[in-house]
């Protein structure tokens, strides 16, 4: 190596980088333990990682790759134990952490080597400078990294890791690892450096590329996710709006039929044959059954939605009770009313219609105001098992293209008016409630309290 001695990265530096990279990612993931147990895991992990790197340093060169793999395994174990994630997700985060750690360690050592190798220093002073540099550089690198991560981790839904993501990040990590370490194995390739500084520089550069690639892959994922979400929400909205327009036509038809009733009654009166008379009456009765579904709440849009859902309830033998002050919804956009009531009632019908005992198919709706608070409350009896994922309810619907977007769409519509949505389950009742503060208060409230 042209007389120059390459000092490898001290094992502790590597261990610290690996541990720190994992730790930063863990901060954003859902923890398995809280309080002292979590702290204990974090501390233990640093000790184990350091001990292992120290041991691996003593092993013959042939064990370098297995040693490396075991270090990665320890990182995986740290993430898997500390966080409530699947083994697969833990692997994804661990590989990602590995790429970060490789870069951090390489970068730090390159700088340290450059500064200290040009100075003739006593061993102790050199050590001190090295630790100081270690501290400063790692702090900068990992703090920067933390902020970068927070950009991606903000969106919790993105945490869903697929095998494809794992494969991509694994490919990146593997190629970066091989190319960046080639010079340490042999100088006789077109990709190897020949001087220490040069070799370190190549390694840092390649690691940096790995880091950039890995982030750009996530950027892409974020973008794709946002796009599909917008599409899905748009679909849900369009569907309910379509239904609303369709129902409007149906209801107009019913109204016309109602006016024809008089003529039909006249026909029945004239009929002499009792059996035929009964048949006519039956037909008439089933014809007007839907008319009962007509609701007059004071809000025309809501009336249409309620009527169409009421018909669905009659068809599914669901008892639907609703107490609604429709005038309260006048400030709301047609599309938002469609979205909130269309989605929530569809979910409720879905939940109630499969109950075996028809008596238990119950749905309730209440829309009322308490002074300046608008309360919209949907409840339905259910017997199926509800599934929760990361604390969020996931759909039991078969149609997965609409996976969970119903509730998301309700939340978005409510949020437009400063509303909050709450979902609760108690005694086999599924309850979705929305609270929207009304702003049209004309009372002159006296502010009796100084702000503290």
């Amino acid at each position, binding site marked *: 190596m042209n007389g120059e001695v390459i000092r490898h990265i001290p094992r502790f530096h590597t261990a610290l980088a690996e541990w720190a990279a994992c730790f930063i990612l863990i901060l954003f993931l859902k923890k398995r333990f809280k309080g002292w147990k979590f702290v204990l895991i974090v501390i233990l992990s640093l000790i184990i990682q350091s001990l292992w790197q120290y041991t691996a340093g003593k092993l013959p060169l042939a064990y370098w790759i297995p040693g490396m793999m075991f270090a990665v395994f320890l990182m995986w174990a740290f993430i898997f134990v500390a966080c409530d994630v699947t083994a697969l997700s833990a692997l994804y985060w661990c590989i990602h952490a590995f790429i970060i750690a490789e870069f951090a360690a390489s970068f730090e050592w390159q700088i340290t080597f450059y500064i200290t190798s040009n100075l003739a220093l006593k061993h102790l002073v050199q050590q001190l400078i090295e630790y100081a540099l270690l501290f400063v550089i790692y702090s900068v690198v990992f703090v920067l990294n933390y902020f970068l991560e927070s950009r991606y981790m903000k969106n919790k839904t993105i945490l869903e890791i697929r095998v494809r993501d794992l494969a991509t990040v694994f490919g990146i990590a593997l190629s970066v690892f091989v190319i960046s370490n080639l010079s340490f194995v042999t100088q006789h390739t077109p990709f190897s450096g020949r001087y220490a500084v040069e070799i370190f520089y190549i390694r840092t550069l390649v690691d940096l590329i790995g880091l950039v690639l890995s982030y750009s892959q996530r950027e892409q994922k974020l973008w794709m996710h946002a796009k599909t979400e917008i599409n899905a929400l748009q679909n849900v909205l369009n569907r309910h709006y379509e239904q609303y327009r369709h129902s409007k036509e149906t209801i107009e038809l019913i109204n016309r039929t109602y006016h024809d009733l008089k003529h039909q009654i006249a026909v029945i009166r004239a009929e002499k044959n009792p059996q035929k008379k009964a048949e006519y009456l039956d037909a008439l009765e089933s014809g007007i059954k839907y008319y009962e579904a007509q609701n007059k709440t004071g809000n025309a849009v809501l009336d249409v939605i309620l009527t169409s859902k009421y018909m669905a309830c009659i068809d599914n033998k669901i008892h639907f009770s609703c*107490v609604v002050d429709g005038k309260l919804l006048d400030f709301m956009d047609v599309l938002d009313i469609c979205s909130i009531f269309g989605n929530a009632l569809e979910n409720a019908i879905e939940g109630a219609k499969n109950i075996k005992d028809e008596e238990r198919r119950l749905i309730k709706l209440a829309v009322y105001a308490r002074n300046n*608070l608008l309360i919209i409350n949907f409840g339905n009896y259910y017997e199926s098992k509800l599934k929760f994922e990361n604390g969020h309810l996931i759909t039991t619907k078969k149609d997965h293209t609409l996976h969970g977007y119903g509730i998301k769409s309700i939340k978005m519509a409510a949020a437009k008016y400063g509303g909050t949505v709450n979902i609760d389950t108690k005694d086999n009742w599924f309850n979705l409630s929305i609270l929207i503060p*009304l702003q049209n208060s004309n009372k002159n409230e006296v502010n*009796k309290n100084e702000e503290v």
Partner: protein
Amino acid sequence: MRIKIAIVEDDKQSAKILASYINRYSKENNVEIDVMHYNDGGQIVYEYKPIYDIIFLDIEMRLLDGVTTAKHIRRLDKDVILIFITNMPQYALKGYEVGALNYLLKPITYFAFSQELKRAIEKVQSKENSYLIFSTKDEIIRLHISEIAFIESMKHKLIIHARQKQYVITGTMKEMENKLERFNFFRCNNCYLVNLARVTGVKDNLAIIDDYELLISRPRKKAFMEALTKFFGDMIL
């Protein structure tokens, strides 16, 4: 405690079924229930006394219909739980005017009835044992939770804002928070512990209770709104 229920129904058959359902519920759930029966709205409204916990009201009655009866009752009794019974759901749609947010459709099934009754009884019972007991400088006070609007902390003192007056006691907010944990109170900022049931509005970062406007601290706004939504959600559940 015994639950007092009134049935106001002019159809004898229907009244009989309701009474048998109440009887069955009482046996199945070990609740003691007294039942009074009225044949018409006019009967219960005449010299009405607020002694009932729950009133089942048929809407379609010949003399005084259920909705009008309910309005009369509501004027005299703010707490009684009203449950409409009807043939025509359209008539019950306006139940919100008298705080009847649910109704039972004829023919009534035992399941729907028992669900409704269970919820109503739970509400009655939770009201029954909701008292805050504390001592001021010179006396011991027993205050119903619904009387309390909010509790304010001010320099090692707590001020209990009740409907009529304010009580100053010594104690910490933490203690009070623990005491009131099961009664739906929420700390909307460091100084105020708010009775969610008494909140009548939210304006920007202010929680409104009667004439008071209480500041909701920014980091607690979201949790406050969620707690309030959950509270009102539980009301009909």
